[in-house]
């Protein structure tokens, strides 16, 4: 049985979506602007996009770049963040570097990267990589720093070497924090993915969106916005499932309010 409270909690996001669409619909009808289609018009355009082979190839290309950029970023950033968290020397070396990169919008680097690497997949994947890296490094760093010293001492007394302690104590102990960083990274991957395709058109979901914008197909533009939003929600929900499973053992953290899972 689902309790009334649980039912309300589950229904809330759905109701919020319906509410948003309703406001949109009304606003569009009132404003009567060509570049602002109604919600129903936008939703009607979705099947056309998803039924079109060309569009699907574009969207899949986007997702592939995003997956590679995100995956490589996570693989590089977690060890780097953990090392920074456990070694002052490593932190002292990388901190200034990261502080320089941190406030720069990653998309602003695109024109330069394009000069070096062209407008293809590598450039876009690299921008996604940069966008994902920072939050993952930061959270891994914080997580590693917070590991209780006595836990490491207990491991040392059992005979774990420094490397073993990093892999078998620091990594699992910091995992809840690391995954929080990865979750932020996932959303940023989606954002940088679309931005990169806005700057370097050629293929991808952003390509469909901005081409439609150029051609004045506003229902397609808004349909793409819905599709991208839905992708974000789905990816986040999947990630949240995995995260909850991996850190079942950890003390309950604050609930992440933006979750649909």
């Amino acid at each position: 049985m689902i309790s009334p409270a649980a039912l309300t909690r589950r229904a809330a996001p759905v109701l919020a979506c319906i509410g948003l669409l309703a406001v949109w619909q009304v606003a569009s009808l009132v404003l009567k602007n060509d570049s602002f289609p109604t919600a129903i018009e936008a939703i009607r355009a979705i099947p056309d996009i998803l039924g079109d082979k060309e569009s699907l190839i574009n969207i899949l290309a986007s997702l592939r770049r995003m997956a590679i950029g995100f995956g490589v970023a996570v693989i590089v950033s977690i060890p780097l963040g953990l090392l920074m968290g456990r070694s002052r020397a490593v932190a002292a070396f990388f901190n200034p570097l990261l502080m320089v990169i941190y406030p720069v919008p990653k998309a602003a680097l695109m024109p330069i990267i394009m000069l070096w690497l062209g407008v293809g997949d590598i450039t876009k994947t690299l921008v996604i990589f940069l966008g994902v890296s920072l939050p993952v490094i930061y959270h891994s760093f914080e997580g590693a720093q917070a590991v209780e010293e006595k836990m490491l001492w207990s491991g040392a007394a059992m005979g774990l070497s420094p490397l073993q302690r990093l892999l078998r104590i620091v990594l699992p102990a910091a995992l809840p924090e690391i995954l929080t960083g990865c979750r932020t990274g996932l959303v940023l991957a989606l954002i940088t993915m679309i931005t990169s395709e806005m700057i370097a058109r050629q293929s991808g979901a952003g390509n469909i969106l901005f081409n439609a914008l150029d051609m004045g197909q506003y229902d397609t533009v808004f349909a793409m916005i819905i599709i991208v939003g839905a992708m974000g929600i789905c990816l986040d929900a999947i990630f949240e499932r995995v995260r909850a499973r991996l850190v079942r053992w950890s003390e309950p953290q604050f609930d992440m309010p933006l979750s649909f899972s």
Partner: protein
Amino acid sequence: MKVMPSRSNEWVRPLTSQKPASAIIEIDRVSQVFQTSARKDHLALSDISLTIDEGAFVSILGPSGCGKSTLLYIVGGFVSPTSGAAKIKGQAITGPGPDRGPVFQEFALFPWKTVLGNVMYGPRQQAVRAVEAEAQSRALIEMVGLKGYENFYPKELSGGMKQRVALARTLAYHPEVLLMDEPFGALDAHTRTRLQNDLLNIWERDRKTVLFVTHAVDEAVFLSDKVVMMSNSPGRIRQVIDIDLPRPRRRNELLLDPRYQKYVVDIERMFDESDEAGPAS
């Protein structure tokens, strides 16, 4: 069993009076200086010398901040002393090792491992076969009274249960010396009493060497063969007192024993006197 001396200061001997043949840990003129934030040096331990016999239960007793933990960490190899040296079985201590098993007040369990996973961690690290490690660990978990909790995660346990797991986890890799830093300090009085009793029962079975840090006089007397009294600022050894009470000890008998009561009262009085004399006097 020895006859109780009539005057209290007869069993209070200065530390240097004996050098037993079966020493397992030797602490030789250890001092520890910490750099405080104000760029001033803080002498946490001053010229500590102490010998611990194999199989003895030795408590380090003193007020908060007198350097008890620091001394224990030096023996554990987690901290290296500013000067002086500590040895185990004649070998200089240069780092942590499985011959010295720590049990901390903060438990320091691995939260991502179950009770069984925590206890098996040490044996597995020492390449004991999984089947064997598991069987031994299950037996240990039963011994510390946690049968049925093998698959619980630390977050699902109370403080007393966590400390039982921590003890089992350390016993599992068979350290020759147990290093316990106020292990029951974070527990409520009732739980503390039960864990003291259980620790004593376990210890009386295999008589491992135990170095036990506490600030509770009754706890030190109840458990120990020897109580090392420390004083504050800088941390020094005041006195080493042999606790000549029969074993196995039963709490209900001991609390009524005038000899036990006398130890507690005398030690408390000595601390009171030093308080009146003021620090560093």
